């Protein structure tokens, strides 16, 4: 059973909605700027990829906006865009065969901060009772399912910075296993003060900008947003004559089991995840046209990821780029937003650039799409995500019809 992407929705620092997002990615537009949501004046770092023009009431009813934290608000807004993009009628969505599987790192972080700060300032009596049930990462898909009428599995996979790929990969497995026809998937994350401070204290945050693969890269820049995709079984998409944006191929999942924040120096886990994604798609490394890098802009990540590229592709220099140079690291939402960027690449043949790239790093000897977008063959691409906790996940995405049928791949793998 093939699994298709038939709609996408985006809330990002470089644009709301698919069209604005695609245009900004192709133009190398940066969403990074001074943080406005909270006071960063004494933290030594000021910048992030904050979503500044998101007005919840443009997308949500007053009651919906009231019962949600910012993370769910962005998730639902992007989900509504994705469903509209897919042309799915409410009557089709309202079904036990529709599921919602979302990823996140922290979920409703603003709700918890509000509760916690009230408790610290005023004691237990100061905590707003009505806000308590609004906290929990499980709420993201609950809110989306409720608004869209999904009645099947409703699940959050908190997989830190690989959460989007985990959700997309698991949703694909569920559809292939015949357990759902349509799955609203992807991820959402909001920028929040405690996280910001934490990354500063881990000495992981760059002073002003994110420079993946550059010799002088100084770390990551945080971001936020939501990327939601509509996945459909081939049978369901064909039955309703849906426009197909892309096909989800194989995905790889491994765990480094090494360190909670650092990638394994030999990168065996991320290498295995990339190889799994390729093998499970029934193709070889030679078939990959472009790799969307995890590319956080930290010393460790980018050199390890470059090594994996060389190990997987050998002498062949496959173009690679990191959208995090423009979006910042949107944590749980990162690989979902980037999967949508990959859909653009498959549709248009445009590889989005890695901006702020100035000085090549011998430790990162890869073909970086530097500073301006590049046109090229884009039939099959990989989307890398390598997370905190040693969670690695890589997804293969392709133009419709460019991958062998999954039944043949399964047969070959079994043999």
């Amino acid at each position, binding site marked *: 059973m093939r699994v298709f992407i038939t709609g996408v929705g985006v809330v990002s620092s470089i644009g709301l909605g698919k069209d604005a997002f695609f245009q900004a990615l192709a133009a190398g537009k940066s969403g990074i700027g001074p943080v406005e949501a909270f006071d960063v004046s*004494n*933290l030594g770092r000021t910048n992030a990829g904050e979503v500044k023009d998101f007005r919840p009431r443009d997308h949500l009813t007053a*009651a919906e906006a009231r*019962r949600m934290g910012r993370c769910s608000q962005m998730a639902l807004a992007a989900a509504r865009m994705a469903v509209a993009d897919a042309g799915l009628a409410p009557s089709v969505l309202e079904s*036990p065969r529709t599921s919602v599987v979302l990823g*996140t*790192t*922290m*979920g409703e972080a603003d709700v*918890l901060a509000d*509760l*916690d*700060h009230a*408790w*610290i300032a005023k004691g*237990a009596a100061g*905590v707003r*009772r009505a806000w*308590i*049930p*609004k*906290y*929990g*990462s*499980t*709420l993201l898909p609950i809110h989306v*399912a*409720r608004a869209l009428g999904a*009645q*099947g599995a*409703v*699940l*959050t*996979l*908190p*997989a*830190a910075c690989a959460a989007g790929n985990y959700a997309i990969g*698991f949703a694909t*497995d569920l559809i*292939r*296993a015949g357990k759902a026809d349509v799955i609203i998937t992807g991820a959402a994350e909001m920028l929040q*003060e*405690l*996280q910001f*401070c*934490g990354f500063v*204290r*881990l000495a992981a945050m760059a002073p002003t900008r994110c420079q993946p693969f550059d010799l002088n890269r100084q770390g990551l820049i945080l971001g936020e947003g939501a990327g939601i995709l509509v996945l459909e079984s081939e049978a369901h998409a064909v039955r309703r004559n849906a426009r197909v944006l892309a096909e989800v191929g194989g995905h790889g*999942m*491994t*765990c*480094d*089991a090494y*360190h*909670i924040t650092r990638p394994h120096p030999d990168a065996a886990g991320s290498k*295995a995840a990339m190889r799994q994604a390729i093998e499970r798609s029934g193709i070889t490394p030679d078939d990959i046209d472009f790799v969307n890098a995890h590319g956080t802009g930290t010393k460790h990540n980018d050199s390890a990821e470059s090594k994996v590229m060389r190990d997987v592709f050998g002498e062949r220099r496959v173009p690679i780029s990191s959208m995090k140079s423009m979006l910042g690291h949107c944590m749980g939402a990162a690989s979902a937003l980037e999967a949508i960027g990959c859909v653009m690449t498959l549709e248009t043949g445009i590889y989005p650039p890695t901006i702020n790239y100035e000085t090549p790093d011998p430790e990162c000897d890869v073909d970086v799409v530097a500073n301006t977008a590049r046109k090229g063959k884009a039939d099959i691409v990989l989307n890398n995500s390598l997370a*905190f*906790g*040693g*969670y690695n996940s890589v997804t293969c995405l392709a133009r419709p019809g460019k991958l062998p049928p999954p039944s043949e791949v399964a047969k070959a793998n079994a043999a």
Partner: protein
Amino acid sequence: MNPKAITGLGIASALGTGRSTLEDGLKNPDGIAPPGPIQSFDASRYGTPPIVEVPGFDPTKYLGDKGLRTLDRLTKLLVVAARLSLHDAGLKRDNQWAALGPDRVGVCCSNAYGSLEAITELDRVAVLEDARYINPAKFPNTVSNSASGYVSIWEDLRALNVSVSDGNCGALDAVACADVFLETGRAEAILTGGGEAMSEALYLAFDKLGALAASDPSSPRARLGEGAAFLVLEPLERARARGAKVLATIDGYGTAFIGPKDDATLLYASSEALERAITQALEDARIGASDVDLVVSGISGIARYDDEERAAITKVLGASRPIAAPKLLFGETLGAGAALAMAASLAWLDGVAPSCIVAGERPAKVDTVLVTSVGYYGNASALVMRGLR
């Protein structure tokens, strides 16, 4: 689903740490010692809060005393349960691999609220002192999948690690995830279960919502609990082929979501969602309602949820089916809840006389168990476990 073998169990619960403490407690529930003083936070201002913790939990006994300093309670509970489960399944002996190996074993771990302990501790430093003073070694604990990630690090489990968050249905959903991953050959064995740790913030939240208040003198009062349990799941034929002892099988799963119609409502219990989940689970296991000997429910003493759960069970299985409520022993343990229910079910399938019966007659023999859970927002899941026939 193709039946999955349960080949090992590791558990830390209100009955103690380790499988034998679970079985002893279930054999003699009246002999369980009452909860001692609260260990996880200073509860002096709350009188005698309705809380059950893992009694005398001492991770150093299982993990040694190195490397524990920055780990939170949730992580320690989960790592201990994981280590015990690997040994129980014969995958490890004296902390060394004895079967399969790191690349073939993964983790599917449910948790509802992450480490509230870590988040509130760092928030306090940031608000009362200065954000620049938060401990970077503790910051990773604030991330939702951190505890699950540490399970892989401590036990060297590299096949995959998937955290699942679906409130108190999460551990049943973790089984559904593990089933998909085993069927697609991503691992040969998956530690499947969940954990939740007691903290002052968690207690305060439930207390403030009135969830722990006695609703009716004739019903048991809900207690908030904590714990962790992992079941080692493997494809049945493969488990047999490697000579593993099979404790029971998981044969079917179902889940559904039906949200409230009323715009102002957020917390919501749906009996219809559970009816659908039960029906799906029975179909998935290819059994009929009359095959279920015992329902191991999520009934916890929170009346609005308990009532909907009973209504759904009664509607699908009839009014006379025996219903057990292990949360009366374990407390409401949220992300760990259904994992502890599956652990209790293992003992009952193994011949231990069922306890915590809240409806129907205690069955003389238990071959087939239906585990049910009603989420707090309209979600519900159910799962079928069978003993060795």
